[in-house]
């Protein structure tokens, strides 16, 4: 097992509340003390995220953990609060992958949404992408024709409505005001869902769109490997670089870059290296975002200082779009590091990196001095 997996799993344990069966929405590290916030609904989503990661880690024998049992407990305690379509989609992925007793019930809920175009059109890219991931996994596992049909229908909807074929960037959602701008997070889940769909159904069209979409994203990667946050879908331009999230750099980008590497997309390996090196001080502020002292922790992001971050971003993006310019980098004095962490971050690390034996510079954390690997025995939650 790599140091990265060990350290991430160890960190997750500190973000876990076994009584509520939840992983935190937000965790602060003060010295060696961790303070976590388990508020709904984010902690629900992040717990599902983490379950997906733990499932992968368990599958590759990195951790001993009863994912199915934990999923049962999680659903018993919190299931009635999971109402978001995207959360249900990712939950279906976990349930189907683990052959859980709940998989059919969750499938019917997701499929019912696919059958309602009006509701589908109101969802955002991340939600629809997670639904496709879930349906694809369920179809692949169950081999049920109705599951294949539901996945095909949703894929066609995404291709027809959510993908701008002129730029190969997906829309965040279909509302008029939000349509021009899309986020890196949404794009990641969109590409991930495409890769899974292409592989499960041997669909060459989805594979082409995935590979071309990845090539397109590679054009946006910054000089220090950073992934911009905000894009204009119509102009195919970066309209805001910030926040630059650590989770994008070390795990979410690899959700599409690692499959792309396996499919032979040129430049994917270099992009992965540049992407994770950003965390080790090779970033605009020259600050390490992954630290080993007093304990292993990953800071959330580099963002612009000041209040009203979102409205300002929209204003800036709209202005840049009008004059058809790309965004530049902000001055260092305008930026700061956000030092809390989120549980879904180590969750995605487990998910992305558990199956891999390459990029050992990163997975062995050679760029992170002073990390003592946690003892093997601690790698059991139960």
């Amino acid at each position, binding site marked *: 097992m790599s140091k990265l997996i060990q350290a991430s799993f160890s960190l997750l344990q500190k973000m876990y509340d076994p009584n509520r069966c939840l992983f935190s929405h937000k965790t602060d590290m003060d010295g060696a003390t961790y303070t976590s916030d388990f508020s709904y609904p984010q902690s629900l989503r992040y717990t599902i995220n983490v379950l997906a990661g733990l499932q992968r880690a368990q599958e590759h024998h990195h951790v001993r953990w009863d994912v199915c049992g934990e999923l049962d407990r999680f659903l018993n305690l919190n299931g009635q609060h999971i109402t978001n379509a995207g959360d249900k989609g990712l939950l279906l992925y976990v349930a189907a992958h683990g052959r859980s007793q709940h998989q059919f019930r969750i499938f019917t809920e997701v499929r019912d949404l696919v059958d309602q175009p009006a509701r589908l059109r109101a969802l955002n890219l991340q939600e629809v992408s997670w639904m496709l991931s879930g349906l694809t996994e369920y179809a692949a596992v169950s081999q049920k024709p109705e599951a294949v049909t539901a996945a095909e229908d949703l894929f*066609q909807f995404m291709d027809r409505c959510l993908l701008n*074929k*002129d730029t190969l960037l997906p829309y965040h959602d279909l509302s008029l005001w939000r349509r021009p701008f899309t986020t890196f997070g949404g794009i990641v889940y969109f590409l991930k869902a495409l890769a899974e769909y292409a592989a499960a159904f*041997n669909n060459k069209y989805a594979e082409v769109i995935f590979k071309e979409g990845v090539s397109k994203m590679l054009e946006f990667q910054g000089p220090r490997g950073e992934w911009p946050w905000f894009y204009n879908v119509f102009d195919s331009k970066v309209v805001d670089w910030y926040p630059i999230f650590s989770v994008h750099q070390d795990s979410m980008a690899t959700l599409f870059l690692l499959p792309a590497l396996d499919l032979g997309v040129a430049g994917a390996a270099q992009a992965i290296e540049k992407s994770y090196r950003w965390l080790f001080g090779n970033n605009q502020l020259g600050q390490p975002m992954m630290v080993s002292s007093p304990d292993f922790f990953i800071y959330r992001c580099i963002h612009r200082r000041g209040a009203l971050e979102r409205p300002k971003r929209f204003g800036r993006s709209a202005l840049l779009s009008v004059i058809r310019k790309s965004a530049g980098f902000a001055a260092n004095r305008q930026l700061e590091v956000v030092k809390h962490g989120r549980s879904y971050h180590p969750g995605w690390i487990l998910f992305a990196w558990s199956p891999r034996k390459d990029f050992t510079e990163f997975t062995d954390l050679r760029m992170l001095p002073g990390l003592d690997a946690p003892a093997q025995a601690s790698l059991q939650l139960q």
Partner: protein
Amino acid sequence: MRIAILSSLPWLDRHSYKNFFLEELAKKPWFQRSDVVLVYGRTKLSDYIKEARRFGIADGLKKLRSLSGPKGPRPAVSRVKKGKRLTALAAELGIATRSFDRLGTPECLSFLKAFQPDVICNLSGQYVPSRVLAIPRHGVFSGHYSLLPELRGGDTVRWSIFLDRPVFVCHMVLAPEMDMGDIVRMNPVPVVRGDRLEDIYYRCQMTSAKGHLHLLDDLEAGRITRVSQRKEQGSLFYRMGRHLKLKVDEALKENRYSHYVEADSGIV
């Protein structure tokens, strides 16, 4: 043999390959003019507007200009004459024409049922409802411009070039599921260095027309072989956007395609 020929957008219907098909059909020894009918769907103004929007204003105008075949300095295509309007040609040949808003309207269905065609040749590229598919004894034949079952869907000539696959015209007996019908004929389409997309399209159209004529001969002689498709043998491809279209145009411009034939090989 009773034949219904499907087409669309009658005011724009001047394609050379359709003219060729009708003229050659009329020369067949078994041809009876009373046994052939030309049936139009998509005849409303909104259909023309939709067609123009599908290609975008600029491309739509370009398409309108090139309806009778590609233009330009290339000798292979400059010889192509502007086709007659198909309805006019049909009248000259004594073939009846009927127009309907849609092929799926009750009027159209009643007409086709009453006509009792043995076969329908789809030259329209439009969606043919399953109620129409069920009418002719031998089914609805349609030409698909790429290798089946590998490449299904739309924009398939571009996809063939993009994926570096040989260009084919495959005729199939249309099935309710898109491009999943039994394959009855496969013909390679030569692509030569310097070809533009419209040159390849033109060759596909002519190959399709000739293929339909061969199929009718085969049907008359009772020698049609149907090869069924399985879904997992191919993928459904959708319309390309500007990003990929540019890549296809570049590939052709830079002669980056593995399946060229020599222009003087006698194949073209």
